[in-house]
């Protein structure tokens, strides 16, 4: 049993993250803690796993008892043999080159004998059903596989409790389903599981109890299902006009792996296209092809009526606004304002008219007070908003967004959605990669579903989702929303 009593914590020079929190986690139990972004959920997870106060400075009051021992008297190594923390970013938790080494890492450090480690590796991989990965190189794993390996590498130290911090944030609906099965399996094997989760729907089906951390207090919580379905009438695309962009029979492969297979797609003014599909189905590659960042091995892409390969990157940038997955990879300047208006300067549009318009927009997005701040110092959600704004600053006709909603709270989601709708009203088109069927149904007027690099379904969101259900992929019509 883990028991936190009267727990309070504050980082140096800041107000308390939470105060007088009481919490219990028993073996064979799955507890979910939810709460808005910045409510201190991750901080709480670090307390329960001993990293606070062992690894992180701050003011710590209260106590945590684990299996009748006070954590304050234990070393981090001793604590970590009882409770493991799976952090949000799997990529950064892998420190070795081979899956086998990664899972062996913990027991090796704890001086476990070689033969015992070998059997622990087997057991850990069995627990996550991933025996086939044992000989693989860690860098070549997919996102979902990396998450599994991180979990296995903690299981091999034989903890009794596992804490997950935002485990489903980068998973596709299928991955979420598999993760739910994994939680059930862990529970069956007597583990006590704590899930810190923002996307409640993803873990609610397997939770025994749900708590909410808000305003520094931890309280029990009975979630209600909320829908963000928009009430505004959807705009029909202007199909009678010339397409903004058209791709005909394009194919692309990485080395020998086919990513896009003989795909054709036209994008018309007034469309908001939700691009969906499993992880690895080629969505990101398709976006890169459509924006001229990759050249197709076969087939052609036209931006307006010009072959995209005949255009310089500046010309393409004039007509397209692109948002990539990782917000940090697309911030270049030293202040929010500089970053935001970079596109105007590059395209020679930094005149008073454009700059004033840009300023208005920045105010609306709530980033104006931060205009002199270092853009990298913004929160994840703010960075994402800045990415979206920067990509649209020169009013391109086509927006290409890769997972813009990850890490966004309700305010951020609404702002981004509004921008897309505004853009649509002005005759622009957008293509948005998302796993969120609520967005597709609420705001998209077309849904393209990719499977193994080809278009499986293309039509109105309702018809595509109902076809998906018929094909046994009903998980696509359930995830997303109800995010705090």
């Amino acid at each position: 049993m883990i028991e936190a009593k009267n727990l309070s914590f504050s980082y140096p020079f800041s107000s308390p993250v939470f105060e007088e929190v009481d919490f219990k986690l028993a073996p064979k139990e799955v507890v979910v803690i939810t709460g808005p972004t910045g409510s201190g959920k991750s901080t709480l997870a670090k307390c329960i796993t001993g990293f606070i106060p062992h690894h992180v400075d701050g003011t710590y009051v209260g106590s945590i008892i684990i299996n009748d021992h006070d954590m304050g008297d234990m070393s981090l190594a001793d604590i970590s043999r009882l409770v493991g923390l799976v952090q949000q970013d799997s990529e950064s938790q892998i420190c070795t080159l081979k899956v086998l080494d990664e899972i062996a890492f913990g027991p090796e450090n704890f001086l476990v004998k070689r033969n015992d480690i070998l059997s622990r590796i087997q057991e850990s991989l069995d627990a996550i059903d991933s025996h086939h990965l044992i000989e693989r190189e860690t860098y070549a794993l997919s996102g979902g596989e990396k998450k599994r390996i991180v979990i296995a590498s903690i299981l091999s130290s034989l903890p009794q409790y596992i804490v997950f911090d935002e485990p489903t944030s980068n998973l596709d609906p299928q991955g979420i389903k598999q993760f739910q099965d994994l939680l059930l399996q862990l529970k069956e094997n007597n583990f006590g599981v704590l899930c810190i989760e923002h996307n409640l729907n993803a873990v609610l089906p397997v939770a025994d109890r749900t708590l909410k951390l808000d305003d520094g207090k931890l309280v029990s919580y009975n979630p209600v299902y909320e829908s963000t379905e928009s009430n505004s009438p959807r705009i029909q695309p202007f199909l009678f006009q010339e397409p903004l962009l058209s791709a005909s029979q394009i194919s692309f492969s990485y080395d020998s792996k086919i990513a896009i297979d003989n795909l054709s797609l036209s994008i018309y003014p007034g469309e908001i296209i939700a691009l969906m599909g499993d992880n690895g189905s080629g969505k990101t590659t398709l976006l890169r092809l459509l924006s001229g960042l990759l050249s197709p091995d076969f087939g052609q892409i036209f931006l307006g009526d010009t072959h995209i390969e005949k255009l310089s990157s500046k010309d393409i940038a004039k007509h397209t606004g692109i948002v990539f997955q990782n917000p940090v990879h697309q911030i270049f300047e030293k202040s929010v304002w500089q970053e935001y208006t970079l596109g105007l300067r590059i395209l020679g549009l930094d005149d008073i008219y454009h700059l004033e318009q840009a300023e208005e927009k920045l105010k609306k997005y709530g980033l104006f007070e931060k205009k002199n701040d270092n853009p990298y110092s913004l929160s994840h959600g703010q960075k994402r908003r800045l990415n979206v704004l920067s990509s649209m600053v020169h009013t391109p006709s086509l927006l290409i967004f890769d997972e813009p909603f990850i890490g966004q709270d309700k305010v951020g989601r609404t702002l981004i959605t509004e921008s897309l709708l505004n853009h649509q009203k002005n005759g622009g088109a957008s293509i948005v990669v998302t796993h969120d069927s609520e967005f597709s149904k609420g705001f998209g007027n077309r849904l393209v579903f990719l499977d193994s690099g080809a278009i499986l379904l293309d039509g109105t969101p309702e018809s595509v989702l109902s076809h998906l259900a018929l094909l046994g992929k009903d998980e696509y019509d359930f995830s997303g929303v109800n995010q705090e």
Partner: protein
Amino acid sequence: MNSSQSPRLKTYEIVTIAILGSLGGALSTFIGYLGNLVNLALGVPFGAGQFMAGLHVFWLVLIRIFVPRNGAGTFGGFLKGLVELFTGSTHGLVIVLITLFQGLLIDLGGIAIKETPETDNFKRFLWWLVAGVSSASNVFAFQFIYFSGAPWFYIALIAVLAFCSGIIFSGYFAWETIDFLYDTGVFSFHTQKQPPPTKERKRVIYRNIPAIAFVLFLTIGSVYYVGFVARAFVDPYACEVVGLVEQPYVYHPGTFPDESVTIEAELQGAYTHLPPANYSGVPVSRILHEASPLPEASMLRVVARDGYSARFSLADVMTDSRLILSVAEDELWLIAADYDGAYWVHHVSIFEVY
């Protein structure tokens, strides 16, 4: 960042070194690419490689500042070198030795300067100098391994180029980057000494003005020095007389202005020959006589700047009036009239008596 307490590196310090070393290794191709762009823009076939030298040391400076421990630079240099070795660097194992040495220089600088440089402008100059020296060090290593006989003057000039690159990229730019990174908050909870909230944005440039001025002065000074003053020290017309002599000295063509003789000689090489011509110069016997060879000496080795050498019997030399040291274009040339072509040593720099 807290540097004091235990001598053992904390895990996050090790991870910081490893990650910066890795990123530095991964970006070395980008640096090469940028160097090629600069070459293209300047219309020269090479040279910008050294102009970019400071960008390699940049990573070691970052490591030493973010992990302010003695040895962190050397450790980081070794690691960055290994990363480049494992990615198939064009220099193979040599790159490990070079980056290791560059890291060592940064560490030595760090030990000498002691504190982290945030506080004090003077310390900042010192850091920039150390970064410049560390950048320039690679020139000498590469010269030693890949080339011999390059005139001193050119090596010094390239070294100054690398030094300037170090000042710009691993000095000025590195500090701009360090300030910038502290600003991003990426060092979340390990950073104790967050720089205090700053007054205005201009501060990076403002704070650096004295350092920039100083470094500009220094750079111009060193170019001048190499171009005009140092040239005298690596005088192509100087020849040292050393070894078993009573009075070693440096011979210059002007040393014995009245003793020059003119002889007719014909170079008979193994494969080629030069027709008879007149050569003027001071007899080698006269030059050696001035240094007074010791009685036990029996041989003379004439050493050229490119490492070539030829050996003569000292007794023969002292009686040979047709063995003279002549002045040719940018060099001293040994005219060995009665010897075959291989003994006509160009670029003579040393007479060693033994």
